[in-house]
């Protein structure tokens, strides 16, 4: 029953984040969906990732969204016609969900007798060290990309003012 409530609230938050016309409100709904996803991760037996999702997904990313909306300025909440017609988009999304359900739900009963005994830190640092390297590369690349974007914008603004 608790899981059902969590899933219903999570999907409700996610839908409101997509449906809302105001960006700031959508960012807050997204933070709620992230927090509920973290609870679901904890229930699935992944407490380490749940904590990271709560701090990064619901904390850092929300702050970044609010910061970006604050700098960019919120556009007036007018309802624009979507590029893809809304009924067609709904049909495509429903077809994708139905296809996923048809493929995934029959396989849920397959419970493996194999249980991984290693700790999370052991798996991360010893078995999946390439993933750690990839994360470091991603972080450095992301920081350089943001610095380049912001510096490029500042240079353009300076050129225009001259």
């Amino acid at each position: 029953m608790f899981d059902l409530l969590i899933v219903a609230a999570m999907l409700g938050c996610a839908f409101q984040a997509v449906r809302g016309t105001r960006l700031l409100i959508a960012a807050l709904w997204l933070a709620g969906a992230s927090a509920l996803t973290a609870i679901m991760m904890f229930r699935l037996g992944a407490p380490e990732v749940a904590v990271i999702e709560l701090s990064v997904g619901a904390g850092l990313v929300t702050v970044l969204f609010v910061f970006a909306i604050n700098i960019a300025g919120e556009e007036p909440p007018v309802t624009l016609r979507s590029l893809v017609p809304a009924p067609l988009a709904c049909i495509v999304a429903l077809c994708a969900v139905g296809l996923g359900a048809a493929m995934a739900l029959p396989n849920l009963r397959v419970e493996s007798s194999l249980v991984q005994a290693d700790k999370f830190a052991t798996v991360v640092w010893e078995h999946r060290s390439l993933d750690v390297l990839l994360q470091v590369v991603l972080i450095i690349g992301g920081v350089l990309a943001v610095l380049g974007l912001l510096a490029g914008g500042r240079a353009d603004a300076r050129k225009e003012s001259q």
Partner: protein
Amino acid sequence: MMSLSLPLMAAVAVLGLLGIGLLGLLVTRNLIKVVVGLQILVKGALLALLLAGRLSGQVQTGQTLALTVIVADTIVSVVALALAVQVRRQFGTLDLQALSTLRR
């Protein structure tokens, strides 16, 4: 059946999040709302990884992969938001339709 209830709920959450994220990507015209839709889609993928790890008895491997996805998703969001800020400064709009027809 009781042991199936949590995986079943997680599977419903995965499918729901993927559907809502896809719908968001399809219907939105705002650059920042595209990032919101992408975030929801990735949350569904994260839960799917953890669910697969639990069902195959390899929870820690699922957690490690989910950690990598969280890092990649955060970087994508940061870069996309910085891009949105610059686009708004340069062109004065976040509307994808207007941006696709603009020329500097």
